[in-house]
């Protein structure tokens, strides 16, 4: 469900890769969760969830779809959806070919539906999980006016709903290759939380098709903190080793995991 378009973009003098910064930051967003589920093709969110589990001392359960060992479903594909509706899943990750300022996501395509000029895979579980999982983290590694749009062409799942719609869940944060937004459900807008090292507010503005809140009165928008040395070691060691089950290529090429480790 997540299209990971991660490249080898090192930050801060090569100390820490973008992926590692994201893993650390997303793990922070998952603090206090009892159960985090991660969709297919999501190595960075998967690594972040495993890091959150480690930091919780094992209190956070992690289910990684598509992995045999990192999930325990025995009732077929429907079980994750049933768990979500029961409130047994606290966090999930979604992405979008387009994401707009109201938190709407589009996984279907560009142009007028149904004969769209660009057609993506489809909505998968988004039109359900986005309503039911309290902390949905939007994750997209291409932050551009093509992806961050004023209004999506097709609403796979809306960011907000009418008051009478049963909706315990929704967008919690949006993290990209440039910055971290949180979503304010009251004003139904994103708020810029931090900008990744090496990037600027102007760059974020230039590449974002929607308006967003910028916290004012406390100086410049803070930089997204990089993981400290012990956390980095953890990511490159234990986490890399665990995520190598579903994502051996990612673990090796991005986190430097060797099979022998």
């Amino acid at each position, binding site marked *: 469900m997540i299209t990971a378009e991660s490249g080898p973009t090192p930050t801060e003098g090569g100390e820490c890769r973008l992926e590692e910064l994201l893993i650390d930051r997303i793990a922070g967003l998952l603090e206090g969760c009892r159960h985090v589920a991660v969709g297919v093709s999501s190595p960075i969110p998967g690594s972040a969830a495993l890091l959150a589990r480690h930091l919780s001392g094992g209190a956070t359960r992690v289910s990684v779809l598509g992995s045999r060992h990192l999930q325990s479903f*025995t009732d077929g594909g429907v079980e994750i959806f049933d768990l979500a509706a029961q409130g047994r899943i606290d966090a999930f990750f979604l992405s979008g070919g387009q994401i707009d300022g109201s938190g709407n996501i589009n996984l279907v395509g560009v142009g007028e*539906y149904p*004969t769209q000029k660009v*057609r993506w895979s*489809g909505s998968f579980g*988004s039109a359900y999980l986005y309503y039911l999982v309290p902390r949905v983290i939007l994750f997209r590694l291409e932050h551009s006016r093509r992806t961050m749009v004023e209004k999506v062409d097709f609403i796979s*799942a809306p960011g907000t709903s009418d008051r009478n719609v049963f909706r315990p869940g929704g967008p919690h944060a949006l993290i990209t290759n440039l910055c971290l937004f949180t979503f304010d459900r009251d004003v139904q807008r994103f708020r810029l939380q931090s900008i990744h090292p090496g990037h600027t507010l102007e760059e974020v503005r230039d590449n974002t098709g929607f308006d967003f809140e910028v916290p004012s009165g406390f100086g410049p928008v803070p930089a997204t903190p990089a993981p400290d040395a012990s956390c980095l070691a953890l990511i490159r060691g234990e986490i890399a080793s665990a995520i190598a089950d579903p994502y051996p290529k990612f673990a090796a090429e991005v986190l430097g995991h060797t099979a022998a480790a």
Partner: protein
Amino acid sequence: MTIDLIIDVDSLAARVPDGAKIALVKTTGGVPMDLVRALIRREVRGLHVVCVPTGGLAVDLLIGAGCVETLETSGVTLDEFGQAPAFGRAVRAGSLRLLDATCPAVYAGLQAGEKGLPFMPLRGLLGSDIAAHRADWKVIDNPFGDDDPIACLPAIVPDFSLLHARQADGHGNLYVGDTREVLLMAHAARKTLATAERISDGNLLEDDAMRAGVIPNVYVSGLAEAEGGSRPLGIPGGYVVDGEHLTLYAEMARDEDGFGEYLDRFVFGRKAAAE
């Protein structure tokens, strides 16, 4: 009964008439690729394909080969091998009737079918363009709530569920282990046509350890042995997806000519070689 049940893959394909509504499971758990290739060879037309709940290579092949009229799915993708090229072309050309869904909605429709219910309620959905384009879905007020709208989805009852099992027995029982969505498909459909890696002696239902993972033959009306019948996709407990082949497909299928060549080589050619 037992004797009529077991036939070859092309005879299975011959039982699926033009215009049939067929269900196929997602890539990871029991796609009957041999049977899909046989359907393309027999030039089936006008299929309504229900993806359970998403589609991949099999669906892309059927679309590209002109077999599909209606596609009901939560997604079509070649996963790490990229977008599904024939699907994309067909959408742009407007040659598919699209019923875009979301995974749990497909499961809910099949569950209604399994239970002989006219519909199942489902949370989520409201206010999405998915729901806006599904005239067959309805919203009611939750009879147990107070101003609580909830979607109701009609039963999905495929004419045929087509699947590949890792094992079968001579009675037509199929072992699918913990891939329960395949069991759901078989329950929901009027008939199930299956291939299996191998057809073993004995009765799978008599094996206490395996029984929990068996589709009983009450649902199965045709069975063919097909070793490697999911290739180049994988089958749990068997083989894994053939990445090289999928990469090749993704490349060849980028345009119609290449797609045609792929069919010649791997669908029609395969048959020719076997003759």
